[in-house]
């Protein structure tokens, strides 16, 4: 009834409609009687056709016709000509039904079934499609059917590509045609069809094509999606790459016993205090991959056997693919200096979620220094209490500057295998950038600005390994700010983009990153202690990113931002101390990424909005702790089900049970009342300090 006018019926219309209903009813009764008695006479089959012409959605009638067809095809006297004419009849019935309702799911499906018998002519189908696609060029049933016909009739993608071109010239606003073009081109790239062997030749032509549409009317949305797809094709390399790792190539890693090791020979960037007897190796890929294991990644070192290493994906879900993978090396108890070599992808098996094989085998190595350890950790950690207050920080660089910078240099992660950007890609981007600058000089266009920002960022990221800096970041930041003002409805979207670009900028050069590196000193003892603290506070970040460049960070200050999410933070496996004070986190489940941080000891989530919203939305995901996967996990733990307080706070249990915190600040959240705090103490028996108070 979509769009069909319905007025109040006049009496005579009503009478006619009653008559029609009675007729249909009689038809149906007769039909069901044939169907149940498996009667497939000519008369019976014709009756079902009549029924379908009136009501194309009566799927039982379609099924009956399938049975009838099968019945006749199995007759011994059945010959090919006869089959063909029989099936042609079938197609005619479908066509009539489609005339009645060309969005009928049942009719299109039946047609596919008939065609898949393989006796019908493709030309007829294309003719019919032309008719329907002319009448409604966006009918997705017709497009779906077109793809089906093309595939089952082995019509070439090139021919279909030509068809989309014709459709686009008729009406370039027809997004369905653009979409089908992207589907066809993907298939051709995948097949490496002739003329489509490399994107290098095809994509520039496609850019030309889409420019016509965009310059004809920049406000027409169809072209923009296609442009976005082209951009993605240009930027994304098919096979996954290793973007960075921890430790990086050439690192000297010092494993130390005590947090206070200032003045010693250790670099504060690569010295690691570990109280768990192991340390992580982190691989950060440029896209999610699966299949990382001790057979695809080989770690050679004197103190662990490669086959003992267990590689785990770090992702929010339980999926077996992730951008970030981690394995833990056991630290030997004796003094040690050892070189560790890691080879990635020398044997096959690492595969991206889009199905491409990791094809750039790479190797990196680093040294591990282990200090003799007195294994009495409890004593060391009781005394320490870390407070990330302004007065406790000292900007980096005043003392022993040179050695600091030297050790910092180690961090600039430049794996040789990273720079595989082909020339044509950056050339294509440069050309697009020029083109969009021109467009924007002609008119003010929001989507044009957004696209230019995306292009500039993509260009910078691609040329970064060579230029070693982001040339356009200022311009991109300006474009984002501009868009926030121009298009307030999508303010937050641009703000997120702004945050991401800002983080890229901060992490892109030594100079800018050093400005955010601080030393922590204890206010009581005034000793300068511990690793470098990266302070990204007060930057009004709404989103966190650039993780691939921050894998080395052990202390991170993200306070006074506008973060609602910390997704991706699970990549920072070395984090031992994290401040999220004064952000906009709204639920405990937002802390999920932290569950994967096994070294995290100090956490500040004070002054967020946790508990402001009385209903936690997880209840839509998991209506109780005992249903669905999350709950069933905790169900196995008897302490949960037997303790009422914990059941009421199952979410807190779910999030905090895996934490290994010494110190937690949670004050300033609605949820953090005394009762809740006592629950937290129960969940985390090892907690030593809560909101500044020592626990007994």
């Amino acid at each position, binding site marked *: 009834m979509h769009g069909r006018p319905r007025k109040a019926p006049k009496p005579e219309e009503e009478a006619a409609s009653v008559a029609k209903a009675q007729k249909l009813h009689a038809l149906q009764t007769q039909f069901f009687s044939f169907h149940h008695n498996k009667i497939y006479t000519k008369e019976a089959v014709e009756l079902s056709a009549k029924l379908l012409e009136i009501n194309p*959605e009566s799927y039982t009638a379609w099924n009956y016709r399938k049975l009838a067809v099968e019945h006749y095809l199995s007759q011994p006297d059945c010959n090919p000509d006869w089959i063909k004419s029989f099936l042609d009849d079938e197609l005619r019935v479908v066509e009539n039904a489609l005339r009645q309702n060309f969005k*009928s799911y049942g009719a299109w499906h039946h047609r596919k079934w008939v065609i898949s018998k393989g006796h019908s002519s493709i030309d007829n189908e294309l003719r019919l499609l032309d008719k329907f696609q002319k009448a409604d060029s966006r009918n997705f049933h017709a497009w779906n059917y077109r793809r089906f016909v093309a595939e089952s009739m082995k019509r070439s993608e090139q021919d279909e590509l030509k068809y989309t071109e014709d459709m686009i010239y008729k009406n370039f606003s027809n997004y369905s045609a653009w979409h089908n073009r992207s589907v066809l081109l993907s298939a051709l790239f995948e097949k490496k069809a002739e003329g489509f062997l490399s994107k290098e030749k095809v994509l520039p032509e496609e850019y030309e094509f889409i420019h016509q549409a965009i310059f004809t009317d920049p*406000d027409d949305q169809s072209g923009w999606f296609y442009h976005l797809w082209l951009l993605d094709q240009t930027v994304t390399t098919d096979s996954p790459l290793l973007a960075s790792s921890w430790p990086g190539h050439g690192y000297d890693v010092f494993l130390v016993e005590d947090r206070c090791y200032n003045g010693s020979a250790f670099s504060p960037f690569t010295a690691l205090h570990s109280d768990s007897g192991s340390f992580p190796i982190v691989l950060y890929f440029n896209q999610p991959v699966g299949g990382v294991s001790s057979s695809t990644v080989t770690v050679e070192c004197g103190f662990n056997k490669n086959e003992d290493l267990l590689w785990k994906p770090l992702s929010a879900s339980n999926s077996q693919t992730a951008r970030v993978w981690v394995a833990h090396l056991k630290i030997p108890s004796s003094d040690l200096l050892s070189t560790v070599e890691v080879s990635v992808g020398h044997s096959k098996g690492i595969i991206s979620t889009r199905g491409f094989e990791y094809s750039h085998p790479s190797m990196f190595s680093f040294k591990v220094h282990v200090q003799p350890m007195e294994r009495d950790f409890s004593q060391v950690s009781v005394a320490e209490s870390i407070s990330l207050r302004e007065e406790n920080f000292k900007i980096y660089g005043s003392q022993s500057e040179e050695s600091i910078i030297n050790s910092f240099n180690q961090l600039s992660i430049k794996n040789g295998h990273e720079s595989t950007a082909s020339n044509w890609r950056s050339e294509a981007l440069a050309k697009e950038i020029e083109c969009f600058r021109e467009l924007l000089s002609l008119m003010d266009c929001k989507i044009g600005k957004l696209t230019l920002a995306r292009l500039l960022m993509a260009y910078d990221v691609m040329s970064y390994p060579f230029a070693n800096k982001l040339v356009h970041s200022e311009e991109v930041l300006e474009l984002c700010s501009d868009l926030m003002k121009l298009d307030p409805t999508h303010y937050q979207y641009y703000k997120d983009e702004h945050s991401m670009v800002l983080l890229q900028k901060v992490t892109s050069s030594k100079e800018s990153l050093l400005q955010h590196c601080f030393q922590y000193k204890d206010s009581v003892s005034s000793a300068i202690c511990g690793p470098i603290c990266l302070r990204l506070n007060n930057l009004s970040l709404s989103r966190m990113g650039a993780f691939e460049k921050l894998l080395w960070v052990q202390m991170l200050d993200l306070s006074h931002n506008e973060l*609602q999410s910390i997704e991706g933070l699970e990549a920072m496996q070395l984090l031992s101390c994290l401040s999220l004070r004064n952000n906009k986190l709204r639920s405990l489940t937002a802390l999920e990424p932290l569950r994967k941080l096994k070294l995290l000891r100090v956490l500040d989530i004070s002054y967020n909005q946790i508990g402001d*919203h009385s209903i936690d939305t997880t209840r839509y995901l998991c209506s109780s702790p005992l249903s669905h996967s999350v709950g069933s996990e905790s169900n196995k733990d008897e302490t949960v089900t037997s303790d009422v307080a914990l059941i009421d706070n199952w979410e807190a249990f779910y999030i905090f049970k895996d934490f290994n915190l010494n110190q937690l600040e949670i004050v300033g959240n609605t949820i953090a009342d005394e009762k809740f705090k006592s629950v937290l103490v129960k969940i985390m028996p090892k907690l030593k300090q809560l909101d500044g108070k020592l626990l007994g």
Partner: protein
Amino acid sequence: MESFRSLTVTQRDQILVEQQVFDIFKTFYNLPPSSQSFMLELQRENHVEYLTKGLTGLGPSFCVLDANRPWICYWILHSIALLDEFVDPELEDNTIDFLSRCQMPHLATTYAAVNSLVTLGGEKALSSINREKLYMFLRQMKDASGGFRMHDGGEIDVRACYTAISVASLLNILDDELVQNVGNYILSCQTYEGGISGEPGSEAHGGYTFCGLATMILINEVDSLDLSGLTDWVVFRQGVEGGFQGRTNKLVDGCYSFWQGGIFALLKRLNSTKEVKPIPLGDGEGSGEESPQTTTSSDAAGEEGLNGDLSLGGSHSEIGDQHNTSSQDNVIDIDHNHSKGHANVEPLFNSLALQQYILLCSQELNGGLRDKPGKSRDHYHTCYCLSGLSVCQRSWLEDEDSPPLPRAVLGPYSNLLEPIHPLYNVVLDRYREAYEFFTKS
């Protein structure tokens, strides 16, 4: 070489719709405040009358939709429930009898019938559902690939997956067998646009995106979707008219107030739990719900609503501006200020603009709602416009159990509809009753 003609048929249709819509807005803004508030009033009584008439007289002219009677029941009953009205007990009895007799071996009608019975509520309605038989039916419809078939020998698509999973979840019969590989099927339907298509290879579509997202949430695999891409896509489906389009570069259609609007209600909840990656924008909210566009029927709706719009932030906005600067700008300003004033939670979409579209452009004053001005009312659009309206009214709200602030509800506060459960698109109270009922038994 051929070249592009600048005014395409699509663009012309879009301009015509914009003119119609902006004329309405202009008239509205030139009226004195008292008449304005009349225009923005939800004509509850007339809607109820239209709906009740529909239910009583599922008259002969509906015969074509015979197979879809459960759908009409659902559209009407759900609309009535949203308006917080009740059905006459005798009529209710008849409807229950009818629904429990229909037992149609089709997933979409099954979904409609189950949602209708849940919406009616009460021991009689809920216990009339034979869960064992239904479970067996769902298993039969499960394809080896993981997806579901609409009916025996029927098509596999995202609708079928949603209706099967939604029904199973609501009736508390969802198990690993049913869930297995459904997620992979849905994943194969997410396109590079970010939205989800009906079947692999097709383009993203509002109805299917709702169905796919809801399914992934119900089976607890929502993380494997590209949620940022999805959010990105749906955000830009709201057009200058205030309403939503169903696909890229189509015309606005009132029914997507729910299909697309409901997506925001789902994302909002995910956002606070999992955080949507790319656009942790304020987060939409609303307790909207979603409905599947499952209709098999001719009318079916939904399928494509036509909506054009300005997706990508600006298309055609110039045209709009020329014609009615003031009204368009007003809409955006109102919304923006509102959201600023409120608890830092901005919906991901312009909720007041959508309410304005529904009330001024989709509503027929003598009852019923429609696709767009110039089209006629029908039960399908009435159901999904109202569902969408309910979502909008709560789009700033974090807590389903407290009423929204008056400024979140466009027009008189009496416009406020009942909240829905966005995963199933049934009124929240009825969901709770059903949840209790099926958890116990």
